[in-house]
């Protein structure tokens, strides 16, 4: 049996109309599919088209189902499996708040520098870092901050795009 669980990043172009996100999310919850992350924003204001990036996991058969079910939704223009279709770039942004004083504060700043996280807010006893990277890089950084006074994290979920000249 094909029971290996695969992780896939899927890009979906949709009409930016009321309820379209609810349709996509309802499809995942109604059919028991898994969402690891989901991001959405309008990418063409004139055509009113939004791009949804979904990171999901499942067996090969489930992934195929997810794509077919998404494609079946009336306001969906295109569904592309970036994981299947060749190399792609995936980035996520996180805002990470760390509180503390003394050595821990200095250490958090030093590590942030290594990870190329920017300070976007500072008080005498806190920092907010902004970091962009792959989900794994963010996980690593947040893991280290946890030991240095992490108080809050806000992540966007992945945005992704294929490499090379081709469009979606």
């Amino acid at each position, binding site marked *: 049996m094909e029971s290996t669980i695969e992780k896939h990043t899927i890009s979906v172009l949709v009409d930016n109309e009321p*309820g379209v996100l609810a349709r996509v999310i*309802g499809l995942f919850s109604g059919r028991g599919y898994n969402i690891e992350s989901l991001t959405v924003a309008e990418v063409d204001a004139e055509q009113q088209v939004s791009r949804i990036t979904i990171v999901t996991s499942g067996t090969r*058969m489930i992934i195929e189902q997810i794509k*077919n079910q998404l*494609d079946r939704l009336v306001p*969906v223009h295109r569904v592309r499996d970036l994981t299947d279709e060749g190399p792609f770039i995936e980035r996520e942004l996180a805002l990470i708040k760390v509180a503390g004083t003394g050595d821990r504060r200095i250490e958090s700043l030093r590590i942030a520098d290594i990870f190329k996280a920017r300070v976007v807010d500072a008080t005498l006893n806190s920092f907010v870092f902004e970091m962009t990277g792959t989900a794994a890089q963010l996980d690593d950084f947040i893991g280290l901050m946890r030991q240095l006074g992490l108080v809050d994290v806000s992540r966007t979920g992945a945005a992704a795009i294929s490499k090379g000249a081709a469009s979606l």
Partner: protein
Amino acid sequence: MSENKLTGAEIVIKALKDQGVDVIFGYPGGAVLPIYDALFKQNDLRHILVRHEQAAVHAAEGYARSTGKVGAVLVTSGPGATNAVTGLTDALMDSIPIVCLCGQVPTHLIGNDAFQEADTTGITRPCTKHNYLVKDVANLARTMHEAFYVARSGRPGPVVIDIPKDVQFAEGPYVPPTEVKHKTYRPQVKAELSRVEEAVELIANAKRPIFYTGGGVINSGPLASKLLTQFVRMTGYPCTNTLMGLGAYPASDPQFLGMLGMHGTYEANLAMHGCDVMINIGARFDDRVTGKLSEFSPGSKKIHVDIDPSSINKNVRVDIPIVGDCAHVLEDMIRIWKARQKRPDQAALKNWWGQITEWRKRDCLRYIHTDPIIKPQYALERLRELTRKHDTYITTEVGQHQMWAAQFLPFEEPNRWMTSGGLGTMGYGLPAAIGTQIAHPDSLVIDVSGEASFMMNMQEMATAVQYNLPVKILILNNQYMGMVRQWQELLHGSRYSQSYSEALPDFVKMAEAFGGVGLRATKVSEVDDVLNQMIDIRRPVIVDMCVDQKENCFPMIPGGRAHNEILLGPADQLGESMSRDSTPEEGMVLV
């Protein structure tokens, strides 16, 4: 009123007419009054007043399935819309084209918990193919036309348009259907030719082939059924239909093996299990058909033709997937078959038919006739004989009677059989019969019913009487929710929890109270006479056919079993295989 501008309500009526709608099923209420007012002022579009919104949708389904047209529904906001939800879900599961117009509270009140407000688009999102909330009258005509396009294109389904009351009053422009094109929705109807060629080669080289066809053939239109019949006869291969697909291939044809699945024939199920090439045309490997998935037709190569790509490889992995409309694909198959002068392996085919003939000899629909107690199968056999010369349409409710009707009534052509397959909605049959009778006023329309199902939408007797619809309701009355009782007997140690129909009304008196005709048969000698009267009376008739209370529906593949573990009848039932201890847990869990 200014030139070229209509009110929202008038736009609705004009769009319906331009879409070829001549009848709409509905129920008025506060939030749709402007549309009802516009209906009142015209005479082309006929409105059928049902007695419950669920029935409006089922009636539209009956109308749609018996004509191939889109069924139209009009209901009010709040409870009107929520009552319609069961019908919409039914239409979604069985891929029936419906456009359901719902009134909504005025736009400025949306979200305020106004009187009779419900989040209709939110509630109906998972039970429609698509839905719309029209907040601006300028978009109304376009949305109406788009809705009809979406409902009937590709895999058909129900579409809801939610129209706030102020939008019904507002004035806006009308655009005709010709000027409306959907931005993105273009289902693929023509299949990839190389795939079809590959399929034809596989079909031609089969040793033990079977055609397994479903509702997709019916939905594709009568031409698909003709082409299917032609192709099956060209090949000389056996053909089985799903519950939804009955009528796509003529039941009287010697190549027809009957229905397959949980209560399908022995020969159809064993042929599915033992085939080497399965040609699935417009069916979806439903769990009622496949039984235990891991043991489903283990040795076969599978071809699957479906207009909906998400139906392919959903439950069963297939070897040749073909996305396209059944009629188009069948046309291609026939053309390629002829061009390549294909001849099946006659020796292998002879062996295969020899095997099938052996299976047929088991006579799996045999039952033990009794007198004077009426067996439900006997009643349906008599119905089959007595309606043979009539122009007959059959609807059913859900349960044992539905399966017996599928087994015992012959369907020679498509669009003659209306039953709730996917959702299994008790209460479907009477409103569906009403919708069918509206579409075919001079035909014989019979709702084969059970007493429990009938009572779920019996208020529609009033609709039948109001419009002089001579629908026949044949209740196979066993005083039980028969299928529930059967499962309780077979799987739950005969503990008949809540499945006995206590305090039943007198159905004959009920028919009379509604203004119809009531008839009753309690013994075999009365069956023919009662059925003949039922057929001849040109008024709504309820027949209380009092049948054996304990009769079970066989053959049966218990939940979680494979096709070759099919049970044939009372004798099998007593055997080891059905004792409670040997029933796999898996089977008991399954529905």
